[in-house]
């Protein structure tokens, strides 16, 4: 299968760079989106969800809170401020994020789009927990 490049960058550091990627599934704001080689140039946002990175030998899964995605010249760049490897997410960590999100939902002056994001977050995290 054809391969392309992936870079995941957080404000603190370059989180991951790989050049043998076959497919990436990202949680774009309007739904999950699969990206293969020679996708047209794209800019989009992420909602809380799981990034699924498939290369020839391995499959990597990450949880993200938010982020920006750009695909150009067969390089997929993901800018995100909050990213965790799924393997490193234990129950306590998940519980803590869920609790924070639930607390955010309780605020009175919350906007609809914020509520949507938080709902998404809780849903995804609960599904991680049940796995």
């Amino acid at each position, binding site marked *: 299968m054809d391969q392309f490049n992936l870079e995941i*960058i957080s*404000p*603190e550091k370059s989180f991951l760079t790989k050049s043998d990627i076959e497919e990436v599934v990202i949680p774009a704001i309007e739904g999950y989106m699969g990206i293969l080689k020679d996708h047209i*140039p*794209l800019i*989009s*946002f992420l909602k809380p969800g799981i990034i699924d990175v498939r290369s020839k030998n391995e499959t990597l899964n990450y949880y993200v809170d938010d982020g*920006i995605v750009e695909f150009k010249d067969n390089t997929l*760049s993901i800018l995100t401020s909050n990213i965790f490897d799924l393997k490193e997410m234990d129950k306590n960590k998940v519980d803590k994020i869920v609790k924070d999100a639930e607390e955010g939902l309780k605020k009175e002056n919350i906007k609809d789009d914020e509520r949507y994001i938080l709902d998404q977050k809780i849903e995804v995290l609960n599904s991680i927990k049940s796995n």
Partner: protein
Amino acid sequence: MPSLDDLRKRITSVKSTQKITKAMKMVAAAKLRKAQENAEKGRPYSEKMNNIILNLSAGVSDPQSAPKLLVGTGKEDVHLCVVLTSDRGLCGGFNSNIIKKAKNYFEKIQKEGKSLKIITVGSKGYDQLKRQYGKHIIENISFKESKNINYFDAAKVGNLIIEKFQNEEFDFCTIFFNKFKNVISQIPQAQQIIPLENKDKDKDEKLESNYEFEPDEDEILSNLLPKNISTQIFKAMLENSASEQGSRMTAMDNATRNAGDLVDKLTIQYNRSRQAAITKELIEIISGAESL
């Protein structure tokens, strides 16, 4: 002429000060390496972010509908200045340089009759500005508790700025920080972040504009610009922390050297007066023996 005892005390005191400055220099050197590494690691994010925004804003055809964070409010009455300084002293001219740069800008603005609002980040900046510009300072933020520079602190400042912008409390926003060039030179910088300064405007580089956007362009842009503000502040904070350590290292190196010089000078003086005392005693003995 100080007595021998006084001199001895002074030499010991200078020596112990030298030990402290030397230790501080070593600590700063170790911290500098880490801070520099962090600053370098943080660069790709802000560069990429800038690129995406450039690509996006190139596609904005109608300035009327463009987000205000990009094009400004159309007025220029109220200027907000965010002054980023350190929380600790003993770092040479680091804080004073930023303050000097900021004060020049403040004066310029006040001469033009525009009103001024200041947010200080870091307690040293607040201490230096509160006397002259106390009534202009609307917020004083300090991250003394957080050990490392992290993005969430920067996002806190960023969100505060955006909130104030949305409440139409100001029209222009400029941040002041030290850009790290190398260990001995840090350059105070003023960077305008609202409205976004398009530095590469003159470049005739053909920007790719056949992007697919999801959701549409305007929504992405209005979502991205607030994030960019936090990113710019984070970048400034990283540069600042590298500069702070570099500046402290140089200052403490100088202090150590000066203390060494002082110890040498005092030792010579001490030896001389010791010799003088001995000679005096000898003369007294000899003249005493002669008179017998």
